[in-house]
């Protein structure tokens, strides 16, 4: 009898997972495997975000195009026509829209992920799931808006007859970098925001400041060469330059600045995840 039971128990399929609950001590161990196990939940979070984002709006997803488009018009008028900022020989609308694509994605992903823990506090205090999936999914759900506004860019490219170059194949890489940057900073800010609600008042200011520290309204060639590496510490500088270059073929491919940016993204990502994990152990008690 005992043998039979032992046999059944030793079958790997029958063995149920054992969850061990102990005081938090391994905050540096990042739960990527668990995140993968909960991929369906991340999918549902993204799906929910998209579903409710434009509910009860009159023009719905058109906002995803209208926002960068209007900003592009304003930038073209003030920075371009009035301030005569150099535009790498590109028409101003293309010059600005190609930078606003990643920037608009980044700023909204950042703001959404910052509030992700606080906005889902009822969930966080009532059910278990890897908390990382919240900032993770809010960063991912911004990609849908990105895709919609990208369609508008195609229209502009055709209108201005800008031929694509082979560099266009690097767009996914720069996009990934933008996603990871937003995630890295989002991890920090969402964790901080869960504990210090001040963060939510800081973020709009931060985003505005960050935009001027990134080559959105001007080309990075305006930055003196000897400060260029420092400029690269802002990963969005590399991302935006990269977008402009790979989408239009104009400008210079970001070189050394990219190495600094990528390093910075990794630092942000791992430190952010570690801080997030540390916060996660107490979040249900403080949110």
């Amino acid at each position, binding site marked *: 009898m005992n043998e039979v039971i032992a046999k059944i128990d030793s079958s790997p399929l029958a063995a149920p997972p054992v969850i061990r*609950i102990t*005081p*938090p001590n391994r905050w540096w161990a990042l739960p990527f495997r668990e995140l993968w196990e909960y991929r369906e939940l991340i999918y549902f979070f993204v799906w*929910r975000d998209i*579903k409710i984002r434009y509910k*009860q709006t009159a023009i719905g997803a058109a906002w995803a195009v209208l926002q960068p488009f209007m900003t592009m018009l304003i930038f073209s008028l003030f920075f371009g026509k009035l301030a005569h900022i150099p535009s790498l020989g590109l028409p101003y609308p293309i010059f600005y829209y190609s930078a606003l694509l990643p920037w608009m994605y980044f700023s909204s992903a950042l703001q959404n992920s910052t509030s992700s823990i606080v906005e889902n506090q009822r969930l*966080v205090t*009532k*059910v278990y799931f890897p908390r990382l999936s919240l900032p993770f999914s809010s960063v991912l759900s911004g990609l849908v808006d990105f895709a919609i506004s990208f369609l508008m860019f195609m229209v502009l490219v055709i209108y201005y007859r800008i031929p694509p170059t082979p560099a266009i194949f690097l767009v996914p890489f720069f996009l990934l970098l933008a996603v990871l940057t937003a995630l890295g900073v989002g991890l920090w800010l969402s964790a901080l925001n869960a504990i210090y609600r001040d963060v939510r008042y800081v973020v709009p200011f931060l985003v505005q400041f960050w935009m001027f520290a990134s080559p959105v309204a001007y080309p990075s060639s305006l930055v003196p060469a000897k400060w260029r590496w420092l400029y690269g510490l802002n990963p969005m500088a590399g991302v935006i330059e990269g977008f402009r270059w790979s989408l239009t073929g104009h400008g210079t491919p970001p070189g050394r600045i990219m190495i600094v940016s990528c390093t910075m993204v990794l630092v942000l990502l791992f430190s952010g995840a570690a801080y997030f994990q540390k916060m996660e152990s107490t979040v249900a008690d403080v949110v």
Partner: protein
Amino acid sequence: MSETVIQVEGLGKRYRVGERERYLALRDVLTRVFTSPLRRNRRPVDFLWALRNINFNISRGEIVGLIGRNGAGKSTLLKILARITHPTEGSADLEGRVGSLLEVGTGFHPELTGRENVYLSGAILGMRKREIARKFDEIVSFAEVERFLDTPLKHYSSGMQMRLAFAVAAHLEPEILLVDEVLAVGDLQFQKKCLGKMGDVAKTGRTIVFVSHQMTQIRRLCEHVFWLDGGQIRRGGRTGELIAAYETEMMSGSAKSQGDNFEIFIGWELGSSGNILKDGLREVTFYFTVNPPEPIRRGYFGFHIHNDASVLVASWGFDGLNMEPGVQQIRVTLPQLPLRPGTYSILTSLFNGGNNLTGKMLEIWNGIPFLAVDTLPLCHPEDAWAGILNLPAQLDCAGFKESITVQQIAGPIRGSRTD
């Protein structure tokens, strides 16, 4: 048989309490805003152990209730087991998928339709998409909201929202289910349905840990109970006994005897089994210890039993009592007391020189402890929860061969537990 699926060892949870330091000036507020995220050293604060030194094992298929007054640590314990909050010390091992139901409607979004919310809430509670799709029709018909599936949730009545929420949760199929107080919602009819569903879930070998303040629910669902008090497990054991002890204590603060402060009634018991009635079909003797301060001539003794809904179940009055002062016993023997399982309160009274209308009241006493009726269901196991009387019955009709005896039914259901 008794394979352990939840093993808790030395579990403790500490919270910081007390007010944070007060802001002194705007300057301090500003420095705090910008420096506090980086600084760890705070003024020392008081700590409170919400749970300390908790040890227990739960076997597969058991339904365990956690009882205790507010702040005893029930919900904290459940939250630790559900991995919502971390323990400060100790460990807990859970074998199998864990589902938790600490709130009804977790993850519902008012802008989404009923259909969409079923999927969302299901996913949040830990169901796979395929699993939800498979059970979708069942969930919807359980909630009785078929007609409103494509209506946004915000247009649902609160009752409908509640039904949908519970329907989703009720169809969770984890190996371990943690439930907190959620059955206290909805109308009585639906509560019954939910309780039934939970019972069904348990029959399939799943383990349930259940927190409730409603003792009827605990009694109906749980075989075992842990009584938490001040962050510690005070007692663990069979439901009937433990709830009676718990309710007795809950009462003892408020239950004072009324009368001329004689404190005539000292206690009562059922002989060797204390306050627990295990067989309602045999002769039962209540032993009341009394200490009359004065000689009683043609006195009156009243004895009443109320159920937990304060319904008078039975009452007896005895006239013409003659007693001398001093500690002595009053024995009341009943040929049988066929009550459904539960907790019953005892009320006794003693009058001198006449009955309860004409005599002089010496004392009316809310009997302590409560009477715990821990009898077995006699016919169908579900019968234990219907009505007040626990009476055997036999059915005869054409084509019905076996007549069901008490032992056959009682054996495998509750009698298997010999502790």
